[in-house]
């Protein structure tokens, strides 16, 4: 549709765009073709019912016929179109803005968001590529690894070294391993706490998780005889979006139910007496196993509770909630190791699973895991049950292990080379193989 500045022109352009004869439109709205012709050439003013009728038969909004699309929306649409690398056969933006103003606004909003994300991505890429601090830190790490590798290879070589050389290379390896540890910590700190704001938006899930983590996964305001109203707590949360507030509301509502059914003092005492075994506690309190696990993970650290992690996943393996514990941090974006008991539980609903999971080569490597999958939500004849699996994760000493399940955090960073569950090669395995 050509851009036309007056109402008559917009009527004519739209009519021609949809290949409607002037006489047909005139008849449809109850006027003569000649009168419509005068209107289309802006020689008659129109409004009210006639304008509405024309808009209906032309399938556009009357406001658009009267005023055209707003200039800002049009220019924003044109800008959005110009940012595309593809040569789409696009209709003029006036038609889109006139007929589908909501969709047009959505396109503009998404184009703005894409531009914002591109700026953020460019900032991050630039940081990674050109940041001298990051380059130096990485260089230090790789230099340490190189020195350790070279020295270690000499020590394990076939040639017998005299004591002096052995001591020297042992000392070098010790020095470099210390340097590697320090530089690794520096690198992690640097990546965790950027000194400039990249503007990357935070997703509602992450925002709520950060909020809960900041409270040590214990909501004191919902405990006791006089809990605070969930809405009041959410209202004071300062969330960036309604979606975050809704997620937090859902979490707090569930937390409150758990707190009512499993009173804090009584539950914590019993948990300690029963070595935090959720199955035993489930029997004592006659409560669902998943609820007991959630409650165990929400006990406050100041009650002398051992570290307890928790993860809740849906049937697709997506993480709906996680409380990390030393060495165990199931990131939300996929790629998880399918060998964790929480995923085994998904295939056996209502069957509790207990296993000691062993991570490769970590400071804290063994975890007592309790997992169970259960249905939730409304049940009906025509409604399939939704399944979620909950897993409690308690760090244990390696020597306590019985039969262990070898697990990883994600294939990409897992060095287990003979794993049947592997989905993709590991960068760690590659490095280890070369050492």
């Amino acid at each position, binding site marked *: 549709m050509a851009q036309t500045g007056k109402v008559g022109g917009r009527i004519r352009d739209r009519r021609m765009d949809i290949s409607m004869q002037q006489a047909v439109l005139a008849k449809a709205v109850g006027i003569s073709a000649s009168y419509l012709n005068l209107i289309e050439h802006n020689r008659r003013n129109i409004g009210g019912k006639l304008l509405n009728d024309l808009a209906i038969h032309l399938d556009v909004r009357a406001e658009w016929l009267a005023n055209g699309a707003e200039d800002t929306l049009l220019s924003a649409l044109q800008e959005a179109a110009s940012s595309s690398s593809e040569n789409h056969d696009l209709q003029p933006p006036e038609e889109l803005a006139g007929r589908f103003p909501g969709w047009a606004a959505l396109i503009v909003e998404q184009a703005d968001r894409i531009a914002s994300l591109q700026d953020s991505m460019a900032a991050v890429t630039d940081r990674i590529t050109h940041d001298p601090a990051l380059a130096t830190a990485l*260089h230090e790490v790789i230099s340490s690894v*190189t020195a350790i590798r070279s020295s270690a290879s*000499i020590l394990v070589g076939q040639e017998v070294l005299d004591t002096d050389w052995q001591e020297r290379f042992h000392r070098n390896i010790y020095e470099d391993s210390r340097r590697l540890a320090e530089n690794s910590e520096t690198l992690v700190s640097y990546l965790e706490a950027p000194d400039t704001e990249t503007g990357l938006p935070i997703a509602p899930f992450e925002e709520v998780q950060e909020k809960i983590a900041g409270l040590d996964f214990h909501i004191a305001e919902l405990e006791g005889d006089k809990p605070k109203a969930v809405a009041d707590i959410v209202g004071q949360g300062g969330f960036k979006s309604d979606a975050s507030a809704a997620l937090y509301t859902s979490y707090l509502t569930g937390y409150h139910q758990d707190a009512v059914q499993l009173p804090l003092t009584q539950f914590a005492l019993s948990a300690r007496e029963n070595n935090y075994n959720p199955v035993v506690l489930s029997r004592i309190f006659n409560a669902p196993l998943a609820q007991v696990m959630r409650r165990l993970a929400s006990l406050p650290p100041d009650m002398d509770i051992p570290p307890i992690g928790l993860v809740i996943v849906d049937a697709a393996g997506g993480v709906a909630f996680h409380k990390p514990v030393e060495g165990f941090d199931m990131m939300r974006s996929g790629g998880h190791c399918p060998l964790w008991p929480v995923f085994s539980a998904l295939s056996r609903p209502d069957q509790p699973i207990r296993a000691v999971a062993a991570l490769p080569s970590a400071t804290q490597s063994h975890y007592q895991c309790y997992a169970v999958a259960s249905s939730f939500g409304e049940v009906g004849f025509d409604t399939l049950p939704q399944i979620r699996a909950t897993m409690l994760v308690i760090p244990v000493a390696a020597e306590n292990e019985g039969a262990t399940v070898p697990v990883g955090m994600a294939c990409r960073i897992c060095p287990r080379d003979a794993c049947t569950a592997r989905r993709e090669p590991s960068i760690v395995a590659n490095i280890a193989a070369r050492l």
Partner: protein
Amino acid sequence: MAKKVLLIEDEPNIIEAMSFILSRDGYTVHTHENGETALDKIRAYPPDLIILDVMLPGRSGYDVLQDLRSEDAISDIPVLMLTARGQTKDREQALRIGANAFMTKPFSNAEVRDVVQKLIEA
């Protein structure tokens, strides 16, 4: 007569390990730790092979290599470049300005020995 290798690298423990393995293979190894004065060292002591790190204090290995290739007296010395960056563009840059070989850290001792032998015998 033993072949001479000049190792230009600023990490002391890498220098020690590489010097050890190359000396054990029969090479005479000299070392230098600064990019700014590396060419002076090369001119004063032209080796049969240079092992040149990219990230050096004072001046990058790329700059040292470029100047080396423009000086007739020393331009023919084979150079093995070492870098912590293994991207294709880094490799291409090194080879474009005249490196004879390019190795990414962390490398194995066997790889270094193999490449050094090939470059010196070439």
